[in-house]
């Protein structure tokens, strides 16, 4: 609850800071401090400290896992703001509002990690989505931004319609919006249809195929700095919502939706990975890769056991940190195509080195957090003992993913060229990147560092 309320308040604070504070640079610092406060209070809440005592029965239920998830996302957002804060300031004329919207998204995140009611799910998703529509279009003069924003909005509201229809059907059979464990394993047809529609709407939000079509265009068209945010924290929040729904309601009938999930996972992996192979623009490639990564995160829904939950947490952290890091550098590149990275290792050895770690992590190479993230996902499915073929398909696509991630590494290290930055990087920025990389490696050698928090 701390997170939801504080982020809403901080959002408002940010809104008004544009009136009260002069100079763009300040917003970043205010936002960073605000995020720090959020993070602290969120961690405090997981240790039982609550700022406000509300009766949230029937709507929200705060548990260790959700709060830890919040912490991870808040931490990533903090890193994001520290790394890319100055880029946010450069987009459009209303940086303060952008920060405010980011806080509102975090509010949505807080809801999605703790909802127990379809109404809260709906509201949470809307709170998450609407700021993103705006952020996507925040660069008003950019036609690509316009297009992305329009596409995102149209398809988003369409999926909202699907979601609502699903919820209505669920309500029709259950007579309640509460998500509860049901002793009744058998769903009626109407309920099953409702569940399917809700599943589809959430798949849309996490850009799982075949409902992923918005993702590449939107991520590509949005200002890169917001793509970074959307592709990481916002998407991960969607997964939190997804997992929560499955854990409470679908969990008891895991085997019954396995086939559906298997198809969706397969399609997601196939679309994401295969399409990414051809991309020349790193940004668009990352958009497709984010679909592929979503495919892996969907394994958590398939497994739906402790490995899945821990793994999703780890995945969220490893994936978000790496992607945020890559985007932080990418926004500063003069040429965002793969060829634009040619020879970066010579001009910017440190940045190149750090990027390698990020890409390796995304590819799931051992010694990086990405490896254990994928490992947990695969393990969670293998643990169920079904659909081993799906796991094999998964790893084969992981191998395909190596292809496009390594294209960038190859460009940076093995090709001649003079990659240039359009915006010079400060040493603070570099140190921060190194710290993030170190964190990813830490997760790759000792994932317990993060996961053990789950247990105490």
């Amino acid at each position: 609850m701390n997170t939801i309320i504080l982020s809403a308040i901080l959002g408002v604070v940010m809104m008004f800071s544009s009136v009260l504070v002069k100079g763009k640079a300040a917003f970043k610092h205010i936002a960073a401090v605000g995020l720090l406060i959020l993070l602290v209070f969120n961690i405090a809440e997981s240790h039982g400290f609550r700022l406000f005592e509300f009766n949230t029965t029937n709507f929200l239920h705060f548990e260790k896992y959700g709060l830890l998830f919040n912490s991870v996302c808040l931490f990533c957002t903090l890193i994001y703001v520290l790394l890319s804060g100055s880029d946010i300031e450069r987009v459009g004329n209303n940086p303060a509002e952008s920060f405010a919207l980011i806080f509102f998204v975090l509010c949505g995140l807080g809801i999605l990690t703790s909802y127990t009611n379809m109404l809260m799910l709906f509201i949470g998703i809307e709170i998450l989505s609407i700021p993103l529509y705006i952020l996507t279009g925040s660069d008003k003069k950019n036609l690509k931004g316009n297009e992305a924003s329009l596409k995102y909005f149209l398809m988003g509201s369409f999926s909202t319609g699907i979601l609502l229809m699903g919820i209505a059907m669920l309500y029709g059979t259950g007579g309640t919006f509460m998500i509860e464990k049901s002793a009744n394993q058998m769903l009626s047809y109407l309920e099953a249809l409702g569940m399917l529609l809700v599943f589809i709407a959430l798949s849309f939000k996490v850009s799982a195929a075949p409902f992923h079509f918005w993702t590449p265009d939107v991520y590509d068209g949005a200002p890169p700095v917001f793509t970074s945010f959307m592709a990481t924290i916002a998407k991960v929040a969607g997964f939190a919502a997804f997992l929560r729904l499955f854990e409470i309601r679908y969990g008891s009938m895991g085997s019954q939706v396995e086939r559906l999930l298997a198809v969706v996972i397969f399609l997601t992996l196939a679309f994401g990975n295969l399409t990414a192979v051809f991309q020349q623009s790193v940004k668009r490639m990352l958009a497709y890769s984010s679909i592929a990564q979503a495919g892996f995160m969907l394994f958590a829904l398939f497994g739906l056991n402790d490995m899945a939950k821990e793994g999703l947490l780890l995945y969220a952290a490893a994936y978000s940190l790496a992607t945020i890091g890559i985007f932080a550098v990418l926004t500063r590149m003069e040429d965002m195509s793969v060829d634009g990275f040619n020879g970066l290792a010579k001009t910017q050895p440190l940045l190149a080195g750090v990027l390698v770690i990020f890409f390796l992590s995304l590819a799931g190479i051992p010694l990086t957090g990405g490896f254990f993230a994928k490992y947990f996902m695969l393990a969670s499915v293998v643990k169920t003992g079904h659909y081993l073929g799906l796991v094999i398909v998964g790893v084969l696509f992981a191998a395909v993913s190596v292809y496009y991630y390594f294209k960038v590494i190859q460009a940076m290290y093995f090709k001649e060229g003079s990659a240039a930055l359009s915006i010079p990087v400060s040493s603070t920025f570099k140190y921060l990147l190194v710290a993030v990389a170190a964190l990813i490696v830490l997760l790759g050698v000792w994932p317990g560092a993060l996961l053990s928090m789950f247990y105490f």
Partner: protein
Amino acid sequence: MHPVLLILVPLVTGLLSFFIKNEKSAKIWALVSSTLTVIVSVMTLLHGNYPNSYDAPWLPMLGSRFSVSLDGVGTVLTLLTAVSFPIIFASTYTNNYKKSNAFYGFMSLTQAGLMGVFCATDLLLFYFFWELALIPAYFLCSIWGGEKRIAVTFKFFVYTFVGSLLMLVGILFVYYKTPEHSFALSALRNLPMTAGEENFIFWLFFIAFAIKMPVFPFHTWQPDTYEQSPTAVTMVLSGIMVKMGVFGVIRWLLPMFPAASVRMADMIMILAVIGMIYASLIAIKQDDIKRLVAYSSIAHIGLMAAALFTGNASGMQGVIFQMFAHGINIIGLWIVVDVIEQQLGTRKFSELGGLSQKAPTLAILFTVMCFANIALPLTNSFVGEFLMFNSVFQHNIAMAAVAGVSIILAAVYTLWMIQKVFYGEVREGEVVFTKVPVGTTAMLVVLVILVIAFGVYPQGMLNLTLIK
């Protein structure tokens, strides 16, 4: 603690190497650190108290422990790994690599990964080191390799990566089959699996190992990679890294899936034997000395692969012995190839000839290495190949006979290589050939001594192979 030191010394020195600015000091640092590893390795050998193991918690929530242990095969291979690196460094001492600190750093990291692979008795840890060895090797090939290095090494990387990912699935599967959910080698024996499951998972593991070895028809990454890699890296790849696959079979595959190994033995042996003949025939037609050695290596590894599945104890001893022998021999061959390439800038037989007049000592050393390569008696390979062939023979006479043809073919292409490179009249372009560096010659002499020593008195190492 010795096994841990074996990993730790190259790991730490390798990481430190990246921070050395001066090229020359990087070289010396690499030599010193690799020699240090040899010392540790020899101390381990002298320690003699088997099993020499160390165990510590690593990932408790995954049920994985940092447990390393040295048995016979582990000792042999760590010894090979330890001994190879200073030889490689010393023999290529005069080669200049741009950013040599990174080069030697990656080399040492590879060594650390290899050591880990050979020591690990925890399956997940094994997988970890397996990849750790691969990644620096990828960078080494891609940065310092030849013209087509990017595409070729990428193929190498993806190929082996696919294999190891399949293995990862297998690892997860067997992990959940263990009653107490453990990755420990001891827990992975006698898993409750149906025959179908066992066969399936067997292949998941075996493909990974087969790609690494490589066994026909998973070998096509190898000649290209050897050709394109800088020779020092090729030495590591062919001398040690291919042994990872063989080692994986010995350490993991056979104990975990004894029944499936028996069921699949014939199939794999047939593949291996086909591969031997196939690679030998291709080797005959090669015009590039590196590719020739590469295909020859495939043929030799084929024999190891075949012998692995005969279920014959002395054959297994032969395989272990041969891993060491083959490592030594092929490094020797590469050293000579490197000298030629560095001095003349070509590896084409059609452009070579008569070098023995320019470099008689080199010619003799190379000839010894070549004869070791074709397993002439009193060279180390003879012992290994004798035992392996014997085991194949005990398994299936026809297979041994067919595989035996590769002995003949090996003679054909190896002698062809000697003849084309060293015999005949001196070519025009070879006037540039200057003196072979002392370090290189010295290392070749060391290798030759090892070849003969283990060829004449193999029993010491054969005893080592038996240690459980």
